[in-house]
């Protein structure tokens, strides 16, 4: 039995070390599938998530960069974020809040945050209140080398997608990746 147990523990260790626990995503997105084989890089991606209702969420990994982005957003909108809020922002995943609700969102508890995520309309993208442009701009300044990725739901409508792409183009980001599933992969795997 000893060799088997050895093997079992070896595997346990392997899986424990390789598993990366996904932080709670506020939106569930069913990506379209494609034959493209290029994997998404592990690091250095600014991700814009667009869900089936056309709500836009923003995500980037790296606590330092997130803090930097928040500071830039704060200075643009004349808002100040205290240390607690900054820390909270750094550890959260995707954010889809208009600026006037961001403070409330950061101070809310986990449960309240879930409710807010369901109710939110995402980051505003319309031309009168184009907050996404400022998000993208701040992120590009905080992390100039990061590549851009759009993770859209298959049911997302084209006008929203076009609008987001046009905002990226306005920010001189003309190359970006569309995140897809491998063709034939089970749909449920997100």
């Amino acid at each position: 039995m000893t060799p088997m147990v050895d093997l079992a523990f070896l595997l346990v260790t392997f899986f424990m070390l390789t598993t990366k626990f996904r932080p709670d995503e506020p939106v569930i997105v069913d990506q379209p599938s494609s034959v493209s084989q290029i994997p998404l890089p592990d690091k250095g991606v600014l991700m814009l998530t667009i869900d089936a209702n056309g709500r836009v969420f923003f995500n980037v990994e790296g606590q330092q960069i997130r803090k930097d982005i928040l500071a830039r957003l704060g200075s643009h909108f004349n808002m100040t974020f205290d240390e607690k809020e900054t820390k909270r922002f750094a550890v959260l995943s995707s954010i889809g809040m208009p600026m006037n609700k961001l403070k409330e969102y950061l101070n809310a508890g986990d449960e309240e945050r879930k409710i807010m995520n369901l109710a939110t309309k995402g980051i505003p993208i319309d031309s009168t209140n184009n907050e996404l442009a400022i998000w993208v701009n701040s992120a590009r300044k905080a992390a100039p080398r990061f590549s851009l990725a759009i993770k859209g739901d298959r049911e997302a409508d084209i006008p929203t997608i076009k609008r987001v792409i046009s905002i990226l183009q306005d920010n001189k980001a003309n190359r970006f990746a569309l995140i897809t599933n491998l063709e034939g992969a089970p749909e449920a795997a997100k």
Partner: protein
Amino acid sequence: MSEVQQQEGSDRGGKHKKVRAKKSSTHVDMTPMVDLAFLLLTFFIMTTTFSKPKTMDITMPVKDNVEDKDRTKVPASQTMSVILTADNKVIWYFGQEDPAQPPVTSMATFSQTGENSIHKIILEKNALVNNQVKAVEDSVKRGLIEDKEDVIKAHKSAVKNAEKKGLIVLIKPDETSKYNNLVDILDEMFVCNVARYAIVDLSESEKELVKNTK
């Protein structure tokens, strides 16, 4: 467990003290530990996802105030417009769109097979490039292409030349179409070796055209 065994040993030890004291079992019962190990193993296997999301790179043109005369002109004979509309339907036509003379349009679907499959239509229209690419791939497989720089270059330029004469696709997603359709048609561009394609907005006359086709 080990304690129990120890006690058993000492119980019997009363009778044959000398012999039993030496033989007392040093085995620890590992079963619970192994159970736990397998439980954890199953858990981690189940929760691990190895398939990473894939990406599709696209490059959009630089958004500058380009004047109409500076825009890239595309020869109408090579141009195919693909309009994506609601309910996963595709309207396509060849040539230039002209408000005065509406082009002859056809409908297609996203399925891979069947008469109206957009996949088949694009493959067919882009046969020139496809044949070239296929020929090169074939000779690579059979080992006919020498690993010399100039030989490889010649083949590459042959494909490039074919691409110049090949199909140009203008992808025009309608407001009612879904993101899924856009990704599907971009996918088709890769599969069918369409080297030149662009995502373009619909013109007014095309919007009319979509309305009338329904």
